[in-house]
Every structure is written in C-alpha cells, then in structure tokens.
C-alpha cells in the first residue's frame, strides 16, 4: 500500500474485483464479524435521542456514531460553559464557549461518520414533554444523563404507556461513582451468539443417520477407512448395538457407561485411531437425552406465545415463531426435541465421510424446517421472512426473552434490594447514594451536598425494614466530595458501557442488563442491583 492515498483511489482499485468487500463493508469489518449484516441493518435503521450534551452524553454517542447508527438527536437548551469546554472532547475548547452545546457537539460528532444523520434540538425538555411528547416517542431509544429526577420520571412514565414506545436508558454519574438502568418493555434475542452447541441427537438418531451407521462393516473395513469414520457415526452404531442387548435402553449406571466406553476402545484396529478416542470422549452424548432445554420450555409458557395466532400483526414475529416451535416439539417425531441443527462440529474424519455426514444432517434439518414452517403458518406467521425463520430455527436452543420494569429512582422491590444487600452491600450503597443525590438535587438544584444530607435523604428512600448498608459512608462521602463532577474517564467509561447496552437493545443479538448497573472507579468494579 502506498504511504499516503485518498480513500477513493484506495477503493477504486479494489472495486473491480468482485469477491472483495466494498468500502462500507471494509470500514465496518471488525464489527460485522460480531453482529453481521443483520445487526448492522438494525443499527442503521435506529434513531436515538440523547438528552443533554454532557461529556458522558457525547461519549455514549461517539460509540454509536462510529459503528453507524442511523440517526441521533441531542436535545439540550444549554450553552457551552468553560467547564464543558474543559471536559468534553466534542467541543472545541474556548472557541465553543457560549454557543449551543447541542449544536457544537452534533457538528463534531458528525465528523466521525458521513453515514450518520445528526440533529441538534435546543428546546427545553420539560416544554417538549408538555407540548410535543410525540417527538420523544418517535425515536427507537432515548438516553438521559444527569437529568432532573422529576423530568426523568415524566419521560419514564410517558415511555411506559405503550409497549411500542422506545426503551429509556437513565444514566447518573458523580465523580468516581455512577449507575445506569434501562426501562424496556420486552427484549427478545434470536441470534444469541450462544457458546452452547445444539444437540447432535446421537441418542435419537434420525432414520438416514441410523441407516448409514448400520450399513458400515467395521470388522472388514479397510484400516485407513476405519480410522476416518466420524465419531458421530461410531457412537450411533455402538449405541444401537448396545440397545439390542440391553432391552432398548442406553447405558445408565456408572458400570454400564464404563463398559460402553470399553466397547468403543475395543473396536480400534490401531492404537492411534483418533476418531475412536473422540468417540470415547464424546460417549456421554449417548446417555444425555436430547430434549427441549428448560429455558426454552419456560418460554413456551409465555402468554404471548399462546395469543400469537389470534393477535394483531403488531405482535413481534418472535411469538409466532415461538408458538410454532412449541407446536413442533409436541407433534414432531421424535417428540420433545427442537428442530435439528445443520451445523456439524469439526471431527476426525476424511473429507468424503465428513461431507457425507454433513449432507445427511443438512437434508434432515431442511425437512424439519419445512415441518416447522407448516406449524408457523398455523400460528399466524405465514408472512415471516425466510432468513428470519432460518435464523430462529438455527438458534432455537438459545433463544432469550426478557421483560423489563418501569423506571424508579430506587429499585422498587424491597426484597430484591435486601437480597442485593446481603450479596454485595457496596453495590447497594452506591445505588442508594446516587439516588439520594438525584433526590436532593431535584428538590433544590444548588443544594449543598453533604454526607449528612445524603444520609437523611437515603432514609426516606429506603423501603421499610431495610437499614443503610455497612459501606454507606464510603459511597455517600465520595458523592459529597465531588457531587457535580462529570470526570473525563468516567464519561468515557459510561460512554462505552451504555453504548454496549444500546447496541444490544438495537441489534437484539445480546442480553442487556436488567436492573441497575453500578460502577465504582476507586476500587474499579461494576455490579448489578436487581
């Protein structure tokens, strides 16, 4: 590559080659390897509203503009103060002082990515709430940083009114301490990037697999071929033979399992047959029943999975797919299994045998998917996109469904708070101290923040029956030290943490926090209350 070149000259040379990715794909390469085109498309169609142009707010936005969020608006009526000019990277020092904070920040944030639309709105949030609430509900997600608690409560109430309204991320920070929470109606995950592999169904082999395993003559096989039979096939065959002599049952007791493994080892014709070593190591698959994972079975009980067929089109396709999945697990033969996955892990084998096995799995997976689609049509999902169905079936073993709560300043459940206190009282101390600060400042913005004032406020916030945690003075004392500090490092850290959560909410590929994420930069820890 030449030392210096324009992006145009760098890309025109490459554009003529078909297999090479285009400029946009190359720009986003390192993130596409995480959330793929589907996640990127979700990001690019998302619209985010951020209330205030503080250092923390612009740090969050930076991490959303860079990966290519569709649109962002900063709502902030304040003008840049000398203090803002000192702690916010998206202001230009003293030359920004006196200008609208929203306008300066939007201008500098937009420089990060041509593909992102950014707007500054200099109205006062309370007036927007009074006169134009539809503006707020028109976004896909709303974020507020260090906003007056009464205003936060008003926004939270508005956005809780309808389940199609945007999620709401509330961030508060004070010096070395901070927390944030997300108010969301529900969050469903299909492409969950699960590290658990779906079952290979060795214990319940489909007919073509069983037939293939039975067709092999291990004793008279060519020795090279013998060392290239995939372990899946070996196990299916050994299990089938075992069942014949054990009244159709798989090994159960420790002794039986040991004997089963010995049978596998005894089949070796040479000591170094690694496929048989693999079969022995994977033998547990023969007595681990392939069934519907309990987490997925629990989802089947969700009321929405029952109403999917009859409800309006506004219901997310997730529930129609879930209803179809439940029908599949009841009516399919064998029952109580999820549709077969076509993904085969790597294993010792020659190419021909491996590809053959892969073909058997793929064919069967296609057949089961076709059956799944029949149930889907019956559960009101006839119009669902094929790519989404493929993805759903592929990830059926690791689906996620989360239900959120309406925002409250302090966790609304006394029981959860009590439990959190028993588990890690430092987390609860920080959560309470930040809530006490918000509460104090909502009453009087320029109030003198002291440990005593915070302690008195905390007493009014704490559910009855609970006492202030042991580390209270440390958290409250730290807040009293620097109540209004939006530290550059804390702003940057929250910028990263909150942006990660927003990306999870928007791409629907990862699991966001459910509760209050608390941060302490003195001892350098994070925790979750709730």
């Amino acid at each position, binding site marked *: 590559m*030449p030392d*210096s070149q*324009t*992006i145009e000259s760098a890309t025109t040379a490459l554009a003529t080659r078909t*297999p090479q*990715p285009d400029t946009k*794909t190359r*720009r986003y*390469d*390192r*993130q596409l*390897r995480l959330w793929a085109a589907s996640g990127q498309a979700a990001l690019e169609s998302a619209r985010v509203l951020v209330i205030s142009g503080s250092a923390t707010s612009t740090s969050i936005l*930076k*991490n959303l503009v*860079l*990966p*290519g969020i569709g649109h962002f608006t900063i709502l902030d009526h304040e003008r840049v*103060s*000398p*203090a803002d*000019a*000192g*702690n*916010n*990277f998206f202001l230009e*020092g003293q030359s920004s002082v006196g200008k609208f904070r929203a306008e300066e920040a939007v201008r500098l944030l937009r420089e990060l990515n041509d593909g992102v639309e950014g707007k500054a709105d200099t109205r006062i949030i309370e007036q927007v709430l009074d006169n134009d609430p539809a503006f707020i509900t028109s976004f896909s997600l709303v974020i507020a940083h260090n906003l007056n608690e009464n205003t936060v409560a008003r926004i939270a109430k508005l956005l809780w009114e309808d389940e199609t309204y945007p999620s709401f991320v509330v961030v508060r920070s004070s*010096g070395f301490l901070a927390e944030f929470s997300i108010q969301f109606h529900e969050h469903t995950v299909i492409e969950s*990037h699960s590290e658990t592999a779906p079952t290979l169904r060795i214990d319940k082999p489909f007919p073509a697999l069983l037939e293939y395993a039975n067709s092999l003559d291990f004793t008279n096989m060519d020795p090279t071929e013998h060392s*290239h039979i995939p372990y899946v096939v070996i196990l299916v065959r050994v299990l089938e033979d075992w069942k014949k002599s054990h009244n159709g049952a798989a090994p159960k007791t420790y002794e039986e399992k040991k004997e089963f493994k010995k049978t596998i080892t005894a089949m070796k014709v040479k000591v170094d047959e690694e496929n048989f070593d693999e079969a022995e190591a994977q033998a547990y698959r023969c007595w681990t029943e392939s069934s519907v994972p309990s987490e997925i079975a629990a989802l089947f009980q969700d009321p929405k999975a029952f109403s999917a067929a009859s409800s309006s089109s506004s219901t997310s396709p997730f529930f129609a797919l879930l209803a179809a999945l439940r029908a599949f697990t009841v009516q399919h033969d064998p029952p109580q299994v999820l549709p077969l996955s076509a993904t085969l892990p*790597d*294993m010792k*084998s*020659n*190419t021909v045998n491996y*590809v053959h096995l892969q073909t058997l799995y793929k064919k069967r997976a296609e057949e089961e998917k076709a059956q799944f689609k029949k149930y889907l049509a019956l559960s009101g999902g006839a119009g669902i996109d094929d790519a989404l169905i493929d993805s759903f079936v592929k990830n059926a073993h690791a689906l996620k469904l989360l239900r959120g709560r309406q925002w409250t300043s302090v966790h609304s459940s006394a029981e959860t708070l009590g439990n959190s206190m028993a588990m890690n009282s430092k987390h609860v101390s920080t959560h309470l101290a930040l809530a006490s600060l918000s509460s104090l400042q909502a009453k009087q913005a320029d109030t003198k923040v002291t440990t005593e004032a915070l302690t008195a406020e905390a007493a009014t916030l704490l559910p009855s029956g609970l006492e202030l945690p042991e580390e209270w*003075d440390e958290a409250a*004392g730290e807040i009293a*030290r*620097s109540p209004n*500090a939006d*530290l*550059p*490092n804390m702003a*940057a*850290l929250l*910028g*990263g*943490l909150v942006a*990660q959560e927003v*990306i999870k909410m928007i791409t629907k590929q990862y*699991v*966001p926090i459910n509760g209050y*994420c608390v941060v302490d*930069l*003195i*001892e*350098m*820890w*994070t*925790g979750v209350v709730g």
Partner: protein
Amino acid sequence: MLINEAGARNLRDSAPRRPGFLSSERILSILTGLPLRIESTRRCRRCWWPENWRTLDCAMTVPLKELSKAYVRIAIELVADGDVAEALTQLFLQSTMATSSTQQSGQDWDGRYYHVDQILDVPGPRTDPSFSPGDTVKDFLRNQCKILVIGAGGLGCEILANLALSGFKDIHVIDMDTIDISNLNRQFLFRPKDVGKPKAIVAAEFIMNRVPGVKVSPYYGKIQDKDDDYYLQFNLIICGLDSVEARRWINATLVNLVDPENPESLKPLIDGGTEGFKGQARVILPTITSCYECSLDMLNKPTAFPICTIANTPRLPEHCIEWASVLEWPRVHGDKKMDTDDPEHITWLYEQAAARATNFKIEGVTWSLTQGVVKNIIPAIASTNAIIAASCCNEAFKIATSSAAYLNNYFMLIGTDGVYSYTFEHEKRDDCPVCGGEALDLTINSELLVEQLIELLVEKQDIQIKKPSLSSGSTHIYFQAPPQLEEATRPNLGKKVSELVSSGGEITVTSTSLPFSLSLRITYS
C-alpha cells in the same frame, strides 16, 4: 504550482492553535488548496517528512515545534519563489505565534478543570493520607508528569483523548502502524483522508488541535527502537497493544529497568486489551506485582490445525484457507513473502482456497473469512475500547495524583450477557522467567530428543517462545543463528537431551523475539 491569496488565507486559518507538528502533506495542501499525495518514498519515522526532502536533521534534540517551522519554510519554497516565499513564511509564523500567545494565556481558562478539580481539591473517604490536595497535585499532573502511550490504535486513540482531558499535558505516543480503512469504525481520531498515514502522527496532531495546551509527541516506529534512557524519562506507561510479543517486550524491559537503589526506576505499567464485547485492564508494578509474563498461561491458545488435515483431509472452509496460505503460497511463490495487508494477496489465497473447497465439496469459503483466518482478525468495537481505555486512564490518573487507591491489579469485563466484571489480584509467579528469579522446573522423558524439546517449548502455554536457542553452561545445545553456529549445533537436534544435560542441570533458552532468557531446571522421568 502557484500559490494565490486564497492559499495564503487557508494557511493562516488552518494554522494550528499552538505551534505543534504539521505533516508535509498538510502544509502543502494548505498552501496549494489541493489535496496532495506524495508518491511512496522512504520517510523519516519521527516527522513523516520524505527523507529526500529533508534538509534538517530530525534528531531527538530538535524540538518538533522548531522542526515544524523549518519545514513550513521548505514547503513554501517548494511552491512559491523568492519574496513570495519569504512573505508567506513570515505570515505563517506570525499567525502561529499570535494564536500561540493567546492560547498560552488562555490555555487554562477559568473553570477548565471544574470537574477534575472536585476530585483534586478534597480527599474522599477512601483516599490515602499521602494525598496532597490542591495546587501541589495539580502542578505535578499538569506541569511535571510525563506519560507514554504505546499504541495509537483502538485503545490508543481513546487513551490519548482521556489523558488530555484529565489534565496530562506531556504525552508521548509510539505506534508503528499506518491507518487502514477498517480502523475507522473505532479509531475516532482518524478520517478517511488519513488512510495510509502513520497513526501516531495523525493522532498526536488531532489531540493537540482539539485540546489546547496539551503536547503530544509522536514516534512512528517500533518500541524496540528505543533504549532504556528513553523509557526512564516517563512517570507512567500505558499500553493499548494488540500484540502479545510487544507486550512481553515492554514488560520485560520495564522489569529489567528496576534498580532497587533508585525508586524512580520503577515505572508503573498499565495494560489494556479487548476482543469483541470483552476486555481487561491491569496495573503492573514491575518486580512488585504480577507481571505480564506471569499471566501468559491465561491467554487463549491460538487455533492450530494439524498439517495432515490441511494437506489431506480438509473438512472446514478454514482448512482450505490454511492450505492456501501455508502450503500453496510457498509452493507457487517460493521465497516471496505473503503480505496479509495486501488485498491482492488475500484475493489470491481466497481463489486457491475456494477452488480447493469446491473440489472437496466444502462450503463457506469467502473473501472475508480468508482475510479473517490469515490475518487472525480479532473483532473490535468502539464501545469496548472506550471502557477499557477509560479504565486504564483512570488508573493512570489515580496513580499520578494519589486521589484514590489504584487497581490491585486486574479488571476483566464481559459485556455479552448483561455487564459482568471481575476484579481480582493476579498472583506473582516465583518461577516467572521475567520477574520471578527462580528457574522453571521441567520434567521430561529421558528419551526426549533436543528437537522434540524445542517443539515442546514452542507449544507450551506458559512459555510460548518462537525459534528458541538452547545452551547449558558453556555447552551450545542448539542455536538458530548465526548460520555457522546453527550448522555446528544442528547434529545435536537428533541427540537425547539426557546425553547433553544431567538431571537437575539448567538449560538457558533465548530467542530474538524476547528480551530475556529463560532458565529451565531439567529432571528426567
């Protein structure tokens, strides 16, 4: 090229707010109003000026500020003649001086550090009594502390911005890379127009323009170019690297730098790393806490496919790609080196791999997968880098100011499922080859051959040494270089280790990739 009035105005308006560093392209494009491209040529690693253009010696002794001014003059002479050049130079220098003097007085405007000062003016309940709040700590942070940032990439860009806003004003940055388009999704100091330019220089220039009064001194080159005296000048070092080898080098260098007689020689090292939604930050006090080498066994083992699978029984698309890069490239191209940054090379590998995959009926070879496998690409996003860089800078700030205790000593974060983090003390290893002092015990079979021992050392997770050379006392067991010594010691490869070293004897292992030697105490089973 003739320069017109508009060009002169551009130059004046674009003059940096403080006299800092201007790259050659920048000066010339400002002057001419044209985007300028300099054809590939050797460049000075420090100032990025084409070497055959330079008339000044760009040595460490010349302040970059002066150098920059001199180059402005040269640049102007290149595009204008005689009197015009003189006038332009004066104009330029006046404008930089003028802005510089106003900046000087206004650098620390009232209220600039309103946020940070809340921390520096008062101790908190957990602050160590040694903290001296107020002017003393602010003076040290803003006027005396000198910090080195290694890496100006994903973490480096974030680190530089955080340090500058926190009040560090003398920042140095080293990076040997140039900007690639795939950096732009997270390395927020770079723009499409910067592709191909050195990261360290562009990042330094951006920070100095954005945060007035902060000096960032870039070095475009390798950390190995610098000697002990260079590293001794800093109070703190932060690493945002993507290479295990570079981390091992700087870690071992800083451990070796520690002189028990001189407490100033102990340089705290803060290290960060990320992968997708995961990351870690740690504080290393060389010789006192666990060092990078102590935790080498925590690294994930790189995926390696057996050569026979690649050659004979491919099953996965990755096997076909490995075949193309490991076996087919050298067969077809001989000694020509494969450059994984060259898209043409990746395309060639992709085509070979795709053809092999079709032959074997294997699906899934794509250009992007080919690039991912041969470059060992690790996914990276802005948000995770922001978290880890902020953690590192927060530690640097706490260590520099004593305003709060620092991390003891390891923080790790997993953001895929909620926010999960774990803070713990990683233990120092007594047999750490860098900071432990004790020899590492290794029990081997008495039949083991020297070449097998070498293979074992390369693969062993807590050693990971490339091309090791072995000696025992005055006996050369095997040396990788120079060629004469390699040839002389080659016959030993086929000998049993037990023939050359007695039980309980020590073997010294060295490698050019590591700045330290490893002592193994051998016993036989």
